């Protein structure tokens, strides 16, 4: 850090230098991006700084990389792009992070202030475009405004309900020099970062919980984001109640834990969907009752009480009206609840409910619905779990393979399963894996992909090879957009429209052309061998796994049905 910091003086810096210094103060170690005309002064300053730059091949991928980095570390990821197309290409990646509440700071170049509004070359209203997909947008108009904007951006993105924030930086503001003051903190009058849980609300939740006969805990992504997984597990163990999760909550309890039921939802596990609909109380922690999780909402709320714990007060009553709620930091809320329960709790042992859920769990936990062959997607995914170490990170793209991963990949640690749950962005998994690898280079990172999704961001192969960030991509290759095809089979009388990916590259050759490894496997032994090699490899390996286009993801709850009405064959 420069001498000005310990001398405690206000230095005169260009806007670009001020930005880099401010990023360093925030502890930024890596930026994912692509340069362009309107962000060149910042790129010039990056050269002399200790901040690592990872060059993406498309700005969408840069945002997904920053996203993957943030999901793994819990710290904000930083994505950088130029104005115009650079900014618009970031949109999908930033929206993905927004929907999954991931902390991220997106930095875009902008044309010079005197050109804003003139339709100048590569000018676009970036602030206007990013308004609905970020928590806040900054556009400093003077270099001296940059330190505060960066401080505020990192504060907003990482506190409360974490979400992306944009900093749009006009080129003249990057270039001009001005005296700068780097503040320790910022005051944002309209923003309340955190809510203290009301002990009376927690006490009532405890009473409802103790009075319940058939309680189920439902853990969402908020449990992982607030690092409260240990407390959730402790709560479940204290009372001996089963834990279901949402897709985003996968990993908030180790999925090999005796109390884990797996995820609920459209493609939830049989036992989780059945049991949550048999419960008389659902304690939902850090989840937002998305339509894909609850399915038919009136069925979901019928005959049971719902207690909602959330950090974000605006989530209470948004999708359903809970019987009781606790607003506040999840970790603090759960700790208070645990302390209250420790005094009066009686373990639910040998109850009818315990016998019921244990029976259903043991019967269906290892069940594979649908595919019967030896070398089918569910079994391949289970093999992946068997072969990966506990702390390995798995990302997914979006589609059938993602839902197979939801059902069959058992997550054992929080922050080791990254998936685009809210926006459902195809092309997320591979760049997110690269971002995760940047954060934890010592851990194996594997992307469970489909051929359709992988093609959307496969150019990130160049990044992974050039930046020496080896990951493994398992392409479940059915030569079609499998989930759409499955829906066309189920709801459109098998009329396939626009789903066949006839002309696509040979993934083995594609990988090799980038300097990565590529291998095609036929059969489980072959796959095992390939994955073992890939885990040892120093370059990215793409494993092409041909599967049948007829394979369906099961169980499957059709839209409008209750969670208990699953199609299983």
């Amino acid at each position, binding site marked *: 850090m420069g001498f000005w910091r310990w001398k405690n003086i206000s230095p005169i810096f260009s806007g670009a230098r001020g930005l880099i210094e401010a990023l360093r103060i925030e502890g930024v170690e890596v930026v994912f991006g692509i340069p362009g005309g309107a962000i060149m002064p910042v790129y010039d300053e990056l050269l002399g700084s200790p901040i690592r730059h990872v060059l993406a091949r498309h700005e969408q991928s840069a945002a997904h990389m920053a996203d993957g980095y943030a999901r793994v570390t819990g710290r904000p990821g930083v994505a950088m792009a130029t104005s115009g197309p650079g900014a618009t290409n970031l949109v999908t990646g930033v929206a993905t992070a927004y929907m999954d509440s991931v902390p991220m700071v997106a930095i875009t170049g902008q044309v010079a202030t005197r050109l804003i509004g003139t339709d100048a070359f590569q000018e676009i209203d970036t602030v206007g475009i990013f*308004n*609905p997909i970020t*928590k806040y947008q900054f556009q400093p108009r003077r270099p001296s405004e940059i330190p505060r904007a960066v401080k505020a951006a990192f504060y*907003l993105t990482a506190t409360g309900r974490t979400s992306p924030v944009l900093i749009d930086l006009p080129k003249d503001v990057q270039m001009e020099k001005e005296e700068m003051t780097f503040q320790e903190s910022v005051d944002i*009058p*309209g923003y309340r970062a955190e809510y203290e849980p009301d002990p009376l609300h927690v006490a009532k939740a405890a009473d409802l919980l103790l009075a319940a006969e058939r309680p189920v805990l439902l853990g969402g992504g908020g449990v992982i984001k607030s690092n409260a997984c240990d407390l959730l597990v402790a709560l479940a163990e204290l009372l001996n109640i089963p834990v279901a999760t949402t897709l985003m909550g996968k990993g908030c309890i180790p999925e090999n834990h005796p109390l884990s039921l797996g995820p609920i939802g459209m493609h939830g596990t049989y036992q989780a969907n059945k049991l949550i609909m048999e419960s008389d109380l659902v304690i939902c922690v850090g989840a937002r009752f998305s339509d894909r999780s609850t399915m038919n909402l009136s069925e979901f709320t019928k005959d049971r009480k719902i207690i909602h714990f959330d950090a*974000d*007060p*605006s989530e209470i*009553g948004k999708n359903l009206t809970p019987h009781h709620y606790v607003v506040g930091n999840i970790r603090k809320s759960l700790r208070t609840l645990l302390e209250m329960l420790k005094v009066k709790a009686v373990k639910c042992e040998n109850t009818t409910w315990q016998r019921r859920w244990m029976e259903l769990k043991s019967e269906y936990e290892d069940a594979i619905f649908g595919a019967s062959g030896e070398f089918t997607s569910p079994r391949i995914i289970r093999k992946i779990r068997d072969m990966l170490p506990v702390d390995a990170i798995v990302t997914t793209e979006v589609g059938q393979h993602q839902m197979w991963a939801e059902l069959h990949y058992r997550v054992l640690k929080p922050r080791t399963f990254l998936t685009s749950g809210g926006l459902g962005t195809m092309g997320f998994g591979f760049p997110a894996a690269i971002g995760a690898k940047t954060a934890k280079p010592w851990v194996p990172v594997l992307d469970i992909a489909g051929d359709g999704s992988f093609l959307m961001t496969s150019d990130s192969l160049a990044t992974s090879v050039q930046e020496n960030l080896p990951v493994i991509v398992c392409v479940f290759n059915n030569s079609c957009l499998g989930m759409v095809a499955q829906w066309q089979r189920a709801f459109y009388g098998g009329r396939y429209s626009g789903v066949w990916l006839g002309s696509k590259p040979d993934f083995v050759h594609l990988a090799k052309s980038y300097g990565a490894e590529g291998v095609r496997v036929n059969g489980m032994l072959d796959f095992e061998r390939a994955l073992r090699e890939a885990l040892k490899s120093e370059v990215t390996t793409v494993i092409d796994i041909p599967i049948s286009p007829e394979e369906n993801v099961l169980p499957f709850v059709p839209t409008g049905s209750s969670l208990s009405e699953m199609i299983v064959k």
Partner: protein
Amino acid sequence: MSVDESVAFQILVEDKPGVLFRVINHFRRLNLNIDAVTVAPIPGMVGKSGITVNLKASSEECSMVQRMLSKSVDVVSVRLVRLSEAIRRELVLAQIKVNRNTGFERLIENYGARVLSTREDTAVVELTGEPDTINSFIKSVLDSGLVSLSRTGLAVLPLEEKVKEFAENIL
């Protein structure tokens, strides 16, 4: 979905560029049509501004907008007011043709409007009143020869206990 009713959101915000856009964008997302918006600085509160958004919406829609507004970084506070339970006033300035046939003086007298300036054959008048009064006044002056018109949108002052009750019902 409950029936639409006239409401006003009183939103205390930070006074800086882009804030009105961010506030109004929430209404746009829910496809709500705004009847009137007023923005004014708040005396004694440096750097703050008050936005009043007046529209017809169901209680579900109100609840959704209120949620989104409360989350906005620039928004310091949001208050939802049912118009039927608030004192509401609007001001209109109208330039009207004046000649013997229009009954100008009777019109001014009936509504209690004030004449601000007069020229050869036109006069500028000011009227403050409830929106219904303003509407009916405008209708009358249309008949008597309206030259130009400007209205402020709504100022709303809720009766406190009613606001609380309404907010509790919605949340």
